């Protein structure tokens, strides 16, 4: 009995750990949707790129994970802006690309991007998994529960970054502009907000957050290019659960997803546990398309 409880707690902790990273990851995706109304199918691959950059930094520059994090975030931010320029801007002919058709187009193009990145990474990494060494090796032991301090740190940083973003969105001028555009792009534009700048800024932040989550996980998860697609799908599932465009929703949903997946791995095994995110996705579609905190009351269904 004692064994069962400690097993449960162990999986729960891993789940929370995963959940905080999922939350960070999903916030970027939902922000992108809220502002640009598009789904980035390559979000998971960009997460991996953040991870790879972090591993690279720890090998080449310094084993300090914070440096890897900062570098990954910076590079990913730039990548985000570049992606906006190449993938979204060509579609912006008139006021903006709120055209539903464009949404499908972006989904498909980012799909292609994901495939491109996955195979490029396969070629570059040569089929080996990458992982950076743990910086903090101390393990807390409470009773029969073992908690790795590295994991605690990862979650703390993830929460910190998420909180930082929250402050950015609610207190700074740019953050408010982003929220304004996500609510009503036309009015925001009429009030003098430059849509192009906001869009590219949002894309940059989105990829930056994803890269941050990837950089954080790189010390506890062996990175392999094929993981990216599954991550993108989990991200989509999370933001659907939380409510498209809702930042707080994706935080909650991210935690739910992390814990559910961990529990599922414990109860039904890793092979079948893969079903959890997709089942959640379909359930959300059928039961409540607007998600948990869906302030985005779009007609997803007829």
């Amino acid at each position, binding site marked *: 009995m004692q064994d069962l409880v400690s097993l449960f707690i162990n999986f729960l902790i891993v789940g929370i750990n995963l959940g905080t990273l999922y939350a960070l990851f999903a916030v970027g995706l939902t922000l992108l949707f809220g502002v640009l109304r598009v789904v980035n199918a390559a979000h998971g691959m960009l997460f991996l790129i953040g991870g790879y950059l972090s591993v690279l930094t720890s090998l080449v520059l310094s084993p300090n994970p914070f440096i890897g994090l900062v570098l990954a975030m910076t590079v990913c931010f730039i990548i985000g802006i570049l992606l906006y320029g190449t993938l979204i801007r060509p579609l912006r002919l008139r006021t903006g690309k709120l055209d539903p058709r464009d949404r499908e187009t972006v*989904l*498909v193009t980012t799909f*292609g991007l994901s495939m*491109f990145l996955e195979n490029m990474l396969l070629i570059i990494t040569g089929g080996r998994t990458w992982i950076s060494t743990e910086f903090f090796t101390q393990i807390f032991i409470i009773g029969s529960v073992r908690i790795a301090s590295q994991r605690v740190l990862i979650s703390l940083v993830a929460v910190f970054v998420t909180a930082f973003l929250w402050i950015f969105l609610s207190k700074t001028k740019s953050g408010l502009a982003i929220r304004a555009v996500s609510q009503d792009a036309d009015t925001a534009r009429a009030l003098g907000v430059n849509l192009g700048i906001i869009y590219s800024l949002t894309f940059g932040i989105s990829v930056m957050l994803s890269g941050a989550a990837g950089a954080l996980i790189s010390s506890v998860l062996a990175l392999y290019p094929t993981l990216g697609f599954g991550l993108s*799908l989990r991200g989509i599932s999370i933001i659907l659960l939380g409510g498209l465009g809702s930042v707080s929703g994706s935080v909650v949903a991210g935690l739910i997803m992390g814990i559910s997946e961990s529990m599922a791995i414990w109860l039904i095994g890793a092979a079948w546990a893969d079903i959890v995110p997709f*089942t959640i996705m379909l359930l959300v*579609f059928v039961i409540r398309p607007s998600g948990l905190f869906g302030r985005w009351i779009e007609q997803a269904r*007829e």
Partner: protein
Amino acid sequence: MRITGSLPKKLTIVVCVVILLLIPLLVRSGYVMDVLILCFIYGILSVSWDLLAGFAGQLSLGTAAFFAIGAYGSAIISMPPYNLSPWFGMIVGGLLAAVIGLVLFLPSLRLRGVYFALASLGFAEIVSTIVYAANVTAGATGIWGYPTFNFPIIGTPIPILSPEPYYYLYFTMLLVSAFLSYKVVKSKTGLCFKSIREDELLARVMGMNTTYYKAVAFFISSFLAGIAGGLFAYYVMVVTPSTAAATVSVTAMVMAIVGGKGTIIGPIIGAFTIQIMLEAFLFVGPQYNYVFLGLLLIVFMLFLPNGIIGLLRKYLSSVRR
């Protein structure tokens, strides 16, 4: 029955068909026939995708699910205890894909645009996970050892060694699928598909039961995809979970987009082009083939949304002036 289209277009199609019919006799290369057989199979698959996405306007990212259901279904049903002949087996595979798809996917048919695409993606991934983990599909090793087509005089030759009968059979299947799709597209149902694609809200306002027609498009599309899967199973003689991989969906999609979506020939042209290109990459640098595919998708979606057929149409219409 008239086949609409200008004389040059009809002539080109006839010439291509004749060439393809003569190839096994002129080019005695098993490799060439192997590549072309895959082109036929993928041709059927990409036409199936195009029916749903190009004509009915419902972007589906889950084609691989039906391809896999068709492949596994056909393989399993040809083995004991069912022992069904492959001639019926492939139909069963197609029907299985269509029925399972419709039943499981019915609630999602009311979704629109991106949401439908995402739901289809989720569905495909669920199928992929089940196929990896379930016992009946033998996990990662896959299913093999099932019989394949029994031809009248020739018997059951091994596909890799003597591909000729398979070549003609699969080519016929491609032509049949294309013809079937053509008839659907030209019918009243096809017209309904197109109006749903153009403006679904307007179609509903005019009284059309769009959900019904979306279901029909979905059914036919997944049926054809299942047939393609069955044909794949009977040629390759082993069915693995890779049939359900997202790569299959994306490949079919790229083929239809590159060839020209919204047409019947477009996806077929795309299938040949892409498959031959992927084969070519095997000589140049095999790891780069899907890198290139991803790039192609991005480029075509952004700059050439009407594919090769679109380019041809633009070129021909400007030449006529």
